[in-house]
């Protein structure tokens, strides 16, 4: 059989081998390795078998630590086992890895190498994670491309059975794991020949079995351990030879030969770079180009990093080498050099190389920083120097320690016969999906090699996506983004207003723009800068109204097929008819399995596309008057203008080291400068029928619609379209000017995402025309300018005095939100809770945030949503890890209390100087109300004045701690993946601690951030990854577990169902002087329905008894009351009435209606049983003493 070519990314390529060669796969999702587990799960769910005719068993664990434990056990019991991970996940596996290697256990761990979190987290790629594993005793094997990753996976699984030493097979996260490239498949027959059945037999013979019992994992003493540890040496000594032999056997079977230390370049090279990973591919390409220019250069690709073979390294290196640069894709602060550099240096010395070349080390590519031929050339240039810079960096501009090498950005080494295309799209328009198909079409249906790579900004709504495609007659090794593209497409015209889209265009390129403008008006619609580039680069401009074509075909704004058709027409990669036939096939393949409707509509879009595309006649010069608007307002702080603005427009790579804080500390409150303008519709307010309930402001996920009381005296300066109406409330007195308050509802037009939740949640319908509500969505364009002015006016109005805000729902929305304009999904169910928290406690609140959606929309650069008030106070926020968040937050409390304790003792010591009155009032201050807190802040201000005047060392010390006297609110925030699974151990410990911390679990019932994997919060009957057939077990009752401690405030809330209950619960939880746990229902895009219906679904969930509402307040025990209060009635509707509306449940019904019916029954039964348990608990009169917990 001739080898089959497929066009896939490395994750799929690796999983395809691992799944075929494993019996047990235990996994835990983590970016960018998650797809390997997901592919495996999909295949096993579909009954796909391994090489031995069995369907591999897939288990999702609660953490990578758990996955490693399960793997270890499975291996001990004798099953061929694998797993996949990355980054922090690998760290959690380390303890087991030492054991697995120490026990000489054949096993392969596939790692999509990713940056470890340090001064910041990054999901992107480098080798900092795998370098942490270099002491585990694992073989560390690195592949450099999707083809290599596929091949090395096969060799690894075969080789580990021979060497008995486990293998960590790694490849670069994103750059390789997510790069789509044409590869040749390793077929089953090759795998059969590769894997030696005798080695499997030997592995099985070592398994734990009561029929031949042995003991592993003994505890050893000084007399035994050391010798035992050295006993494994022969196995390690044998690895390089054995592994190379396996690669040679692989070569004999496939024709693809790999060397563990592979040199490519001039046979008499004088300058050589040594490196691992995808950078080898770009280096290979660069060396080839330099050699054509007559340069004596080469690249040494290190594939085997552990055990490091100095002999093979030395043997691979030409004798002629005079200068060597060893490039590490990691940073080890404080080390003499990075790991690969140190090993190469040591290895060449130990092998007695003579003459010894000059050897320097350098760092490149951290967190997927671009590593281009120009950078590699700069390294080679550096090696020409008599004393090249050591410990350099390349790819950044280091203006602080001046370690970086400069490079020439204009260098372009790519052959002219490689076609390069770049597409700018929107997340929801299908651009990336269709480009993935395009790459498949070109890679699999033509003789071309093809490569696709995709990049996304980090927002979850209105995402801008970038697709980089290459194809040409030779394998593509260009492991860096496309520059000088011959085809550029912009699938959403407003992107031109922000991004320098044509910066990547080569002279003479074709530029395809999706715009409502026809060929006659398109030119005039372009910003001046774009016109200038088009003229200067002699770019040919084509336009199509893709949204119109898609809408006419009944596809809404899903324009992928339209634009894909235009691309094929303009690129000429295939004859037109064949291209269209292939596109249609692709559409059929992508959507046809679910039914014909979407296919038919796409066909119509494809058929309609070409006749609607027009070339625009480009004038000889730019004539536009309109320039791109500034990225951020001139009023923005310097840091925002200087640093964040560059990140916002995709030019962050140009920022030097000095632009960045050395410790990762970042200012808060920067989203407000971004003004993304992604909504197509925004809410409009009808003051006449509005009942001023403020629910719109409460539910808005982005704090983009706000309400406020306005002093009529302040409206004089208001824009003409700024609307106010007489405030209907009686309890908030008069405005400072003495007039009655006016009331306003205002939308931030550039920050609204257009989700429509506010309109759905608005309770007021026009009596004569109930379709019209007090707020309605309306197209933004005619409103944008006026609403911008109105918003600018609104935002400078003073907020209502928080000390005067009564404790009720409506008034809560007159408090300033200190969480605004996050990058969360449009219609997000989590962020309304965070916003409310920030309104209630934001000016004295510390947030410990578990990794996940909340940490991404809460803390992903460029701009961040946690903000501060006019006094400069606001939530202080930090993210530690995914697994430790409860402990992290507990640490806040311990720290605050320790400082407060010291401050109190200093204060008492200074009492004679300060006077008893001030000291006593500071120590005994009641801070249960906003007024009390305001008074205490005033006392602290006076104290500071006094202390400055006293001026003694003790006084200065106290001055620095004086803040401690103001009550702080510690909030531990995260999702269900953290609280129910990976962080549960720590959470449980914190629940038992009795400390004054508040825990808010934003429960989406699924791992949302990593793509919808099941958690223990996933409810019965829901489909999720790793529960594709619908979860058959019930959701873990986290609240009930927490109640079992008796001294934890526990509550379950659903803002969309009962908002006043949420508010009441937040306040009660915060006031409870022990641990509080709130579990908050959060609708999510992973539920599969239009999120503007989120609140209706919350109501249904509560009415069906699926989501209980309750508060368990231990304070009530002391008052002889039952601590548990049920805040929702008995189930009123069936589970079906709730579940029928969500895609996650409907999928299960579609797959197997009969099974779904049993799951529905089980859901009803679960809800009823749980209700029964709660009702009984709500009748248990506690007798134990439960004063609020006392400090130990």
């Amino acid at each position: 059989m001739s080898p089959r070519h497929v066009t896939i990314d490395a994750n799929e390529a690796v999983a395809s081998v691992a799944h075929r060669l494993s019996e047990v796969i235990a996994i835990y999702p983590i970016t960018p390795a998650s797809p390997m587990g997901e592919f495996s799960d999909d295949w096993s769910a579909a009954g796909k078998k391994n090489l031995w005719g069995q369907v591999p068993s897939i288990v999702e664990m609660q953490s990578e630590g758990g996955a490693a434990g399960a793997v270890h056990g499975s291996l001990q019991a004798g099953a061929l086992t694998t797993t996949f991970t990355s980054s922090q996940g690998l760290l959690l596996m380390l303890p087991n890895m030492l054991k697995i290697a120490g026990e000489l256990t054949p096993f392969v761990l596939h790692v999509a190498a990713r940056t470890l979190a340090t001064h910041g987290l990054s999901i992107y790629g480098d080798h900092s994670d795998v370098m942490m594993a270099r002491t585990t005793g694992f073989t560390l094997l690195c592949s450099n491309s999707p083809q290599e990753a596929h091949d090395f996976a096969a060799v690894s699984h075969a080789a580990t059975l021979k060497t008995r030493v486990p293998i960590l097979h790694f490849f670069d996260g994103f750059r390789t794991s997510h790069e789509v490239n044409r590869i040749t498949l390793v077929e089953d027959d090759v795998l059969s020949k590769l894997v030696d059945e005798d080695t499997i037999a030997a592995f099985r013979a070592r398994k734990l079995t009561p029929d031949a019992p042995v003991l592993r994992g003994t505890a050893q003493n000084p007399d035994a351990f050391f010798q035992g540890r050295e006993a494994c040496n022969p196995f390690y000594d044998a690895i390089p030879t054995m592994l190379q032999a396996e690669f040679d056997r692989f070569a004999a079977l496939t024709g693809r030969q790999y060397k563990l230390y592979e040199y490519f370049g001039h046979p008499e090279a004088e300058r050589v770079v040594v490196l691992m990973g995808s950078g080898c591919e770009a280096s290979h390409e660069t060396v080839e180009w330099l050699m054509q220019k007559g340069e004596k250069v080469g690249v040494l690709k290190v594939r085997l990093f552990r055990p490091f073979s100095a002999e093979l390294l030395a043997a691979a290196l030409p004798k002629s080498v005079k200068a060597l640069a060893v490039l590490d894709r990691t940073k080890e602060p404080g080390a003499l050099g990075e790991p690969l550099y140190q090993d190469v240096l040591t290895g060449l010395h130990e092998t007695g190389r003579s003459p010894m070349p000059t050897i320097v080390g350098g760092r490149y590519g951290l967190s997927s920083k671009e590593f281009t031929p120009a950078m590699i050339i700069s390294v080679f240039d550096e090696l020409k120097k008599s004393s090249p810079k050591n410990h350099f960096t390349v790819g950044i501009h280091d203006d602080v320690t001046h370690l970086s090498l400069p490079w020439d950005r204009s260098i372009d080494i790519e052959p002219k016969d490689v076609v390069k295309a770049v597409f700018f799209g929107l997340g929801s328009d299908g651009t990336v999906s269709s480009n993935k198909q395009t790459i498949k079409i070109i890679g699999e249906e033509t003789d071309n090699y093809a490569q696709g790579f995709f990049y996304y900004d980090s927002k979850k709504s209105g995402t801008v996506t970038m697709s980089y495609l290459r194809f040409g007659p030779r394998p593509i090794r260009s492991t860096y983004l496309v520059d000088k593209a011959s085809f550029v497409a912009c699938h959403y015209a407003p992107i031109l207003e922000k991004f320098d889209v044509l910066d990547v265009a080569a002279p003479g390129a074709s530029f395809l723009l999706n715009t409502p403008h026809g060929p006659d008006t398109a030119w005039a619609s372009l910003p001046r800068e774009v016109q200038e580039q088009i003229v200067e680069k002699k770019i040919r401009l084509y336009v199509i109204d893709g949204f119109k074509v898609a809408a006419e075909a009944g596809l809404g704004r899903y324009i992928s097929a339209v634009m894909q058709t235009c691309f094929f027409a303009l690129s000429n990669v295939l004859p037109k008819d064949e291209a269209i036939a292939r596109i249609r096939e692709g559409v059929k393949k992508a959507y046809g399995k679910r039914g014909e409707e979407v296919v038919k509509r796409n066909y119509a879009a494809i058929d309609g596309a070409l006749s609607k595309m027009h070339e625009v006649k480009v004038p000889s010069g730019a004539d536009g008057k309109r320039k791109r608007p500034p990225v951020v307002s001139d009023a923005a702080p310097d840091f925002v203008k200087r640093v964040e603005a560059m990140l916002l427009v995709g030019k962050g790579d140009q920022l030097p080291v000095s632009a960045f804080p050395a410790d990762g500390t970042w200012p808060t409150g920067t989203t407000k400068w971004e003004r993304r303008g992604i909504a197509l519709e925004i809410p409009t307010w009808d003051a006449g029928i509005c009942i001023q309930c403020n629910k719109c402001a409460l539910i808005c996920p982005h704090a983009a619609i706000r309400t406020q009381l306005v002093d009529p005296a302040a409206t004089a300066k208001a824009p003409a379209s700024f609307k106010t109406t007489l405030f209907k409330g009686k309890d908030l007195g008069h405005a400072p000017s003495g007039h009655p308050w006016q009331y306003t509802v205002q939308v931030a037009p550039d920050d609204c995402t257009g989700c429509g939740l506010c309109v759905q949640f608005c309770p007021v319908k026009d009596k004569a025309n109930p379709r019209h509500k007090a707020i309605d969505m309306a197209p933004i364009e005619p409103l944008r300018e006026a609403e911008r002015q109105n918003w600018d006016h609104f935002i400078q109005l003073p907020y209502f005095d928080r000390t005067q805000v009564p404790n009720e729902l409506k008034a809560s929305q007159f408090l300033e939100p200190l969480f605004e304009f996050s990058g969360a999904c449009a219609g997000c169910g989590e962020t309304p809770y965070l916003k409310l928290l920030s309104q209630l406690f934001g000016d004295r609140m510390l947030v410990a945030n578990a990794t996940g959606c909340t940490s991404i929309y809460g803390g992903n650069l460029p701009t961040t949503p946690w903000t501060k008030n006019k006094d400069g106070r606001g939530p202080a926020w930090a993210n530690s890890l995914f697994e430790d968040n409860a402990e992290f937050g507990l640490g806040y409390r311990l720290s605050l209390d320790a400082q407060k304790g010291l401050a109190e003792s200093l204060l008492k010591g200074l009492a004679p100087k300060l006077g008893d009155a001030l000291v006593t009032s500071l120590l005994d201050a009641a801070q249960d109300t906003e007024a009390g807190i305001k008074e205490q802040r005033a006392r602290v201000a006076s104290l500071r004045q006094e202390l400055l005047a006293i001026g003694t060392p003790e006084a200065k010390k106290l001055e620095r701690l004086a803040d401690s006297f103001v009550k702080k609110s510690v909030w531990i925030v995260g999702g269900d993946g953290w609280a129910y699974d990976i962080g549960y151990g720590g959470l449980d410990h914190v629940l038992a601690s009795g400390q004054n911390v508040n825990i808010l679990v934003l429960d989406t019932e699924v791992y949302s951030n990593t793509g919808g994997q099941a958690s223990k919060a996933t409810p019965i009957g829901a489909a999720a990854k790793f529960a594709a057939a619908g979860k058959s077990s019930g959701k873990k009752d986290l609240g009930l577990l927490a109640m079992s401690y008796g001294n934890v405030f526990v509550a379950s809330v659903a803002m969309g169902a009962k908002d006043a209950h949420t508010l009441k619960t937040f306040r009660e939880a915060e006031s409870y002087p022990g641990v509080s746990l709130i579990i908050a229902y959060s609708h999510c895009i992973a539920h599969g329905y239009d999120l503007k219906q989120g609140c209706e679904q919350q109501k249904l969930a509560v009415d069906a008894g699926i989501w209980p509402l309750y508060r368990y307040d231990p304070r009530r025990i002391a008052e002889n009351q039952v601590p548990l209060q049920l805040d929702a009635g008995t189930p009123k509707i069936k589970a079906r009435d709730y579940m029928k509306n969500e895609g996650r449940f409907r999928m299960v019904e579609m797959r197997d209606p009969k099974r779904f019916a049993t799951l529905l029954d089980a859901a009803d039964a679960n809800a009823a049983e749980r209700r029964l348990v709660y009702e009984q608990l709500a009748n248990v009169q506690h007798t134990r003493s439960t004063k609020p917990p006392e400090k130990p």
Partner: protein
Amino acid sequence: MKPDLSTSWMGLTLAHPIVMGASPLVDNLDSVKKLEDAGVAAITMHSLFEEQLAADQLAAHRFFDGPANSYAEAANWFPSTADFKLGPDAYLEQIRKIRAAVKVPVIGSLNGSTPGGWIDYAKQIEQAGAHGLELNLYALHSDPTKDAHTVEKQQLDIILAVKKSVKIPVAVKLSPFYSSLPAFVTSLENAGVAGVVLFNRLYQPDIDVEHLALERVLQLSERSELSLRLQWLALLSPKTTLSLACSGGVHEPVDVLKALMAGAHVVQVVSSVLQHGPKRIAELKKGLAAWLEEHEYESVKQITGSMNLVRCPDPSAYERANYVKLLQGWHARHR
């Protein structure tokens, strides 16, 4: 002598006139078998709604495919969505299963929304093994620029196209809202249709006055609905050669008798079976047979149409005078 209960419906010979109308019971094979055990004469599938299939597929596209490939950490948020079907497959598969499970005729039912859809799905229902096909023409026409003639022409065109594409007999289920129902039925007859079902029970939303919202309700039929069917059966019965089915309002054996007398060849029952279970079929059949025997009728054929417009003693009662007469009668009774 036991009366002969056999009848004919859209060209199929049935053992008796009591047919299971379109209902959710067909989704469950156990229920289907119980219907056969109860002696049902034929089983009608609930409608395959083209509009629903399209809506499901578009929703899945929007919520599963829409967010896909838009975020670095997740290419999508759901397990593979390829292995659940939103097209007609499940419906067709159910026809196959019912055909395999029972011996009585199985009639498919289709409510299309596009010309292509009507034809494609009709063919697929035929291929799945249905003995006949009921076209559910129900649609609401709210466009004031589209006149009755245009609407009826479109409906006839669809029927002609479907007739051309399938060989199994085709019946048409109508609503009562035609300006001239007899004329339309004549057109159907000319188009080669084999039967007419009177009438579709329309989905009519209710108003929630407290929340100013519409409520979706589909209520079970009541006996009072029978009168409208009786009237039109009686009017059409002598004027068409098509077989006629009465659908809506048949709950008791006497209702079956009335429908047959008015001109129905079969009655379709649903609400009564949903309320009382499949055994209701047997009860109705038994009641029908008993009445016929008691009244010394030889066959169902004998009673069919016996009280239609041309055979009933006082035909004016079926026509416009009905209203006047009723009032007079009312006065007379209370005088």
